[in-house]
């Protein structure tokens, strides 16, 4: 039968290769706004930038309009639970894409279990609306200033957040409409 998912033994920090030189574009961005970049990870041809939660909205609106990057398309936004024991526990990943330059970046926000608040980027890309609702629904991450933060996949009166690692695969009890 189902077993527990593998405990995360490797923290996300260990995949960081800070000795690896970031691409010129990332370096330029880092020079522009050094306090928005906590860490840069270049792995398997993908660029990941770890952004402090309080700067995510500013970073996104900057990267959307900055002519060097022109990230006008938010491909995807998804949450990750790194494990109950992990600190910080949650990640929110923003997959950015440019419809003119065809390049992709991943922005990553790390959140502690006690403070799962992050600014909504709905004002930057409207498509973030449903992605953020989904992340709220399944992980309980709260997006501040979201216009309509309701559950989207699970019923309104659902208890808990289903994709958290401490939520059992089969739930706590069979769901029935009240």
């Amino acid at each position, binding site marked *: 039968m*189902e*077993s527990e*998912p*593998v*405990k*995360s*033994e*490797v923290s996300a920090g*260990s*995949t960081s290769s800070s000795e690896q030189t970031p691409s010129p574009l990332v370096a330029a961005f880092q020079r522009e706004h050094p306090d928005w970049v906590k860490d840069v990870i270049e*792995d*398997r041809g*993908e660029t*990941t930038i770890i952004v402090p939660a309080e700067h995510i909205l500013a970073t996104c609106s900057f990267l959307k309009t900055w002519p060097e990057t022109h990230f*006008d*398309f*938010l*491909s*995807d936004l*998804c949450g*990750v*639970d*790194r494990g109950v024991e992990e600190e910080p526990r949650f990640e929110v*990943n923003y*997959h950015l*894409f440019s*419809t003119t330059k*065809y390049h*992709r970046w*991943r922005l990553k926000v790390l959140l502690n279990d006690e403070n799962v608040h992050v600014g909504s980027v709905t004002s930057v*890309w*409207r*498509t973030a*609306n*449903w*992605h953020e609702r989904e992340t709220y629904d*399944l992980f309980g991450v709260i997006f501040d200033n979201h216009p309509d933060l309701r*559950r*989207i*996949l*699970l*019923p309104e009166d659902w208890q808990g957040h*289903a*994709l958290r690692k401490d*939520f059992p*695969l089969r739930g706590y009890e069979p769901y029935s409409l009240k």
Partner: protein
Amino acid sequence: MSAAIPPQFEVVDRPLDTQMTISMGPQHPSTHGVLRLELVLDGEMVVKATPDIGYLHTGMEKLFEYKKYQQGIVITDRMDYLNPLGNNLAYVMAGEKLLGLEIPERAQTIRVLMCELQRIASHLVWLGTHALDIGAMTVFFYCFREREKILNLIEAASGGRLTPSYFRIGGLMMDLPAGFENRCKQFLNDFLGAVDEFHTLLTGNKIFQNRTQGVGYISAEDAIDWGLSGPCLRGSGVALDIRRANPYCGYENYDFEVPTEPDCDVWARYMVRMRELKESHKIAVQALSRLKPGSVKADAPKVVLPDRQAMKKHMDALIHHFLIVAEGFDVPAGEVYFPIEASKGELGVYMKSDGGPKPSRVHFRGPSFVNLSALPDMARGGMVADIVAVIGSLDIVLGEIDR
């Protein structure tokens, strides 16, 4: 001179000053599954349309975390069930990117061939049901006649018609069966004639034109802002195709066009898909002509199941077979996002590994999910009947939206 109209029959044209909220779905036939729309109407005009989804939610992303990498492939079939090979492809290629596997050329070519056949099949279901929603019944039968031939081909290759699970991390389940190429050639030879038939049935049809032209408008800027992708984005004049922008599977070596239409309405999205049928046909013909003998599995004995005959003769192959089936294979820690151009738009898989045989997170960026989120914008100010046309033009599959 006509007689004066009695006052009780006089047509009074004034908008109702009362608004009505009605629920369309979840069992409405034109919502293509179990989608519920909460409509605020002023007479017949849509003031606000709010999609309500989740009726088909089965927790697939949770399930991935409890299944080994190779077991996850069968779950992907059930997401966008009209384009299962596309889902398989995005999933296995994300896994291959995590592992850093090189896929043999023959496997890549077969993947392109099968995915283009699947794209045609998916577009055919869209065309049949879209026309059916608008009131043209005949097209449905013509489309399903052609789709049946593709499903037979997919069944010949994989054993499954709707849930093929044909691709594996590291290649294919098995090589194409004997005689497949000839059957495929025969289908492709006849197919362009069938597309002309569809055009005869619909494109010149005045009713169809009136129902689709100028309906469901979304500008290019709005489409990008809403994250539309695939034919919906190209119907707004943006020539974006992941096969061109971020090529995979060797798509950069194929000669095909990215059709766009400038009109931004239901008609434009219709024309884009109709032209894509021919482009997919073109790619499939090229892929078929490039098929050269060779292996369809990567040279990675710890990840790819050994050949059946080898397993019966060689001890190491037997050990590998046993270990892969019983314990799975470890994937190095890391995370990737792999986008492909599925039949409905950008299908992206985010996969995160902690180093074990099961992924720690799999997320599907479904094109239907994102395309549907733009529906309120497209439906506002239109008629109730136009919503049916707009939903049809978005080509949504609820299995993928709700996951």
